[in-house]
């Protein structure tokens, strides 16, 4: 069409936001479909087993069954969700839901079925993003969509490794969108539902509690009290519908035991890049120095990943850490945020507070998975486009946390895929932020347009360091040291990424403390 006369045709083709969001989702779906045959972790079999278990057994045995080592350890709503999916699984291939014969079943049918369920359940993410961004201007919308719907971490964790994080985080986003709109009761309700899907999201519960108490229930004795009762009633009802049947069967203790397996160690098999990495490393360092100085330091027999056995500690010098200590530390780290939420509960800060809460949980929590960084990276994307500082912080954080989950896909086949996903994400962020913050909307000269999005030199050096770490782990380490210290590259990634996450935590903390 000629430039001079925008014809009817063009107007007709300018898309509505909903259509554009679908476009983003469908493009992502094409890639997800192409990833069908990629590597699947044991989580795939875990979820298949849950399909079989919920389909073949009566409710009373769900939390007792031990046919497969992958026992059900998610709250009841997730079990109901699996029960729902198993109806379709049974229609497609009964072997998928067979308790014994289905074990490690890996035909195309089961793979395609489960991959499709992961794709479809992402619709909740789509809805959450839509609700959160529908009042923003078109350009910001598209930027946020490309950060969330095309998040490389979700591709890697959900559609290669296999989990349902998109679905769960989608529920979290829906809850946040209600809070931002001031519809607190619905927000609280959706969050309670989320907790009954996956209890690990409970880290943000204190923030929710304080915020809802102050923002929803405060103001006047009677009004406040009645609102407290309403909210309490809603949350109780949600929990009752989830746990009620098991309570009725008298199995609640068994369910709780399954949900909170404190028998596990402080670190997951692959160390998440959090505070405890530093703790462990300083313990090793101190032990080494003391030994050099002539003290007799016993090498600990317990391992970090194996959990607490008797009173043997995995640490040789520093005091032992128990789940209770980590719990207190998370609460302490949360306290500035709780204080702010108490003093001035404003809806526009809620996404930041919730993201901050998950950051604290990630840094100081017990037996944290590296995948848990999704819980704060995705909500932070919503505020990433607000100021230049936010954008710089998000740029660094999302690259670091995406890189920190690289070890999840350890097979050579997926190597180009994860690297390309991260590169593409970085370049999209870079050009998106450039346009957002340096564009010359008011007819600026070409010079400003060219400038682009710049990050500080410390950040730049840090990101270049990531490349060095990757080259070391992939090429130099195997070449120079062979099979010796095979764990070293992974440890390096953990430690190096832990710096980035710590930085992000401090940045968020400062931001929250500074805010009015």
């Amino acid at each position, binding site marked *: 069409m000629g430039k001079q006369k925008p014809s009817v045709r*063009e107007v007709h083709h300018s898309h509505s936001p909903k259509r554009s969001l679908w*476009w983003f989702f469908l*493009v992502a779906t094409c*890639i997800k479909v192409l990833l069908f045959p990629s590597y699947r972790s044991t989580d795939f079999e875990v979820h298949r087993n849950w399909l079989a278990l919920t389909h073949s057994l009566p409710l009373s045995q769900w939390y007792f069954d031990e046919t497969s080592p992958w026992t059900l350890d998610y709250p009841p709503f997730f079990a109901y969700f699996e029960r729902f999916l198993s109806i379709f699984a049974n229609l497609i291939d009964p072997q998928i839901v067979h308790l014994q014969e289905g074990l490690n079943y890996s035909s195309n049918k089961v793979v395609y079925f489960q991959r499709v369920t992961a794709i479809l359940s992402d619709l909740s993410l789509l809805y959450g993003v839509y609700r959160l961004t529908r009042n923003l201007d078109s350009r910001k919308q*598209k930027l946020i969509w490309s950060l969330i719907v095309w998040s490389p971490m979700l591709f890697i964790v959900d559609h290669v490794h296999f989990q349902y994080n998109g679905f769960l985080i989608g529920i979290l986003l829906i809850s946040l969108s209600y809070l931002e709109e001031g519809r607190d009761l619905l927000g609280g309700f959706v969050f309670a539902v989320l907790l009954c899907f996956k209890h690990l999201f409970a880290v943000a519960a204190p923030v929710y509690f304080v915020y809802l108490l102050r923002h929803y229930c405060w103001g006047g004795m009677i009004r406040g009290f009645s609102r407290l009762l309403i909210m309490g009633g809603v949350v109780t009802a949600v929990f009752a519908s989830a746990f009620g049947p098991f309570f009725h069967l008298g199995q609640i203790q068994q369910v709780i035991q399954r949900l909170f397996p404190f028998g596990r160690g402080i670190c997951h098999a692959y160390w998440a890049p959090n505070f405890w990495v530093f703790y462990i490393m300083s313990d090793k360092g101190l032990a080494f120095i003391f030994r050099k100085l002539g003290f007799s330091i016993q090498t600990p027999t317990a391992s970090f990943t194996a959990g607490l056995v008797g009173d043997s500690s995995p640490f040789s010098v520093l005091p032992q850490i128990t789940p209770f200590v980590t719990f207190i530390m998370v609460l302490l780290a949360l306290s500035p945020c709780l204080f702010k939420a108490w003093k001035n509960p404003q809806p526009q800060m809620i996404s930041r507070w919730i993201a901050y809460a998950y950051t604290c949980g990630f840094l100081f929590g017990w037996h944290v998975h590296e995948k848990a960084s999704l819980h704060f990276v995705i909500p932070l994307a919503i505020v990433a486009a607000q100021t230049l500082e936010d954008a710089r912080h998000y740029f660094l954080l999302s690259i670091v946390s995406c890189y920190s989950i690289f070890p999840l896909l350890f097979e050579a086949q997926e190597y180009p895929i994860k690297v390309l996903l991260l590169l593409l994400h970085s370049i999209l962020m870079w050009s998106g932020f450039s346009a957002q913050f340096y564009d010359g909307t008011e007819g600026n000269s070409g010079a400003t347009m060219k400038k682009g999005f710049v990050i500080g030199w410390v950040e730049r050096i840090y990101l270049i360091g990531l490349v060095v770490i990757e080259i070391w782990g992939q090429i130099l380490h195997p070449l120079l040291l062979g099979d010796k210290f095979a764990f070293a590259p992974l440890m390096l990634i953990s430690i190096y990424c832990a710096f980035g996450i710590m930085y992000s935590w401090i940045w968020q903390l400062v931001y929250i403390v500074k805010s009015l």
Partner: protein
Amino acid sequence: MGKGKKVKDTPSDDDCWWWLVQKGTTAVFITVGLFALLVRAAVSLHPYSGAGNPPKFGDYEAQRHWMEITINLPVREWYRNSTRNDLSYWGLDYPPLTAYQSFIHGLFLRFFHPDSVALFTSRGHESYLGKLLMRWTVLSSDALIFFPAVLYFIIVHYNQSSRSRKSELAWHIAMLLLHPCLILIDHGHFQFNCISLGFTVGAIAAILSGKDFVASVLYCLALNHKQMSAYFAPAFFSYLLGKCLRRKHPILEVLKLGLVVLGTFAVVWWPYLYSTHSILEVLSRLAPFERGLFEDYVANFWCASSVLIKWKRLFTTESLKLISFTATVITCLPSMVQQIKSPSSRGFLYALLNSSFSFYLFSFQVHEKSILLPLLPATLLAIEEPFMFRWFTQFAMLSMFPLICRDNLVVPYLALHALFVLIPNAPGQHRIKESNYFVSYLGSATMHLVLCCYFVLHIVYLTMHPPEKYPFLFEAIIMNLCFSQFVLVTLGCNIKQWLLNKPVKLEEIEKKLI
């Protein structure tokens, strides 16, 4: 993720993509290129042709076998039947450049996984690492040859055309790099079309920028990688001839070009130039006339008309060779004449399309995969002819569908097809002008009917079994439908090419008047 999609020149609120484009061609190219690589890497997770299907496997095994032969035998024995080189088992039947490429890739494979290219013992070798390394050879060839060639073409093409719009540029890059057929055949089915097509794109770009010698060298390389590149020969020949005829010393110019061509050929064929016998030995491998007029089901004239006329029974192979040769030459004559008469950049692109189409439709021994060759100029013309391009691509996809089903690549086929539909419909995009001579020929009712057939045929082919009496009924229907559409496309493009003369004449007349 991805794609630097289309945008208007001036930023405005409802135009969300300009941020990707404002960074310039390089940034757009990198973004789209990374996305295209991601798609290729994801497609390469899927099975290849003949996976787990002994004794002959498929094209994957052919390529692997060539690597095995080339790294284990001296150059002179590559095309010779011997105890060490059984030509009846996937003998080399491509020109020397393919052999050299196999040699280099073979070295790569041997370095990481010697078992996969060991002489004799590696026949039918299939392993996780083997597949991975093989896939990486295609990925790297694509990234090293096809991608730079496309960048070269884009830079040249959008420098010269005055109506270059950045949004169109982004869209055009996406179409070139994300063309579903090429990705499916190279990274799914397993072939190295990206190399010969990449050289061809390079040659075309060189022609557009006026570097005729570079173009000749690149085109000769393409020809020496896959003899199928000869489909483009009439266009290159007539354009260059037409241009030489317009110079001061036409004969000298032609001689110079001839020398360049001969020189390139001599370099590539050097190891076989020691005797006529060895040259003939190689040549005989390149022209497999014993394989018949057509193989399987292909949407060309011979296969489509064989429903009514049993060509293979009526004529001997010798006379069929002659008939098909004559038909090919006659059909590509109009576009050649046009180019010799008035060579032009646009006309050249149309001529490429028309000459490759006449080869695809009428020449001897055509594969369904050869549709990639006419598709290439059609993609280069995608901005000028968006509708023709989409229509043609759809039916090209359909014509490969039976092959894709045999290779178990239906899932990537559907995903890539969806992507192909999605990309032109990116939000905030300017619709590109549709010059719809095509629709006016067909009428929109017929078009919808054809589209309907298109969808139904996919579903029928996937879900139903053909009647026992006609086991290839569905293939025949698909091929006839595709053939009819291809004929329409090439007819339309021939007319389009001839119409190009008109405005030029008008301009000339105007100039004279002034």
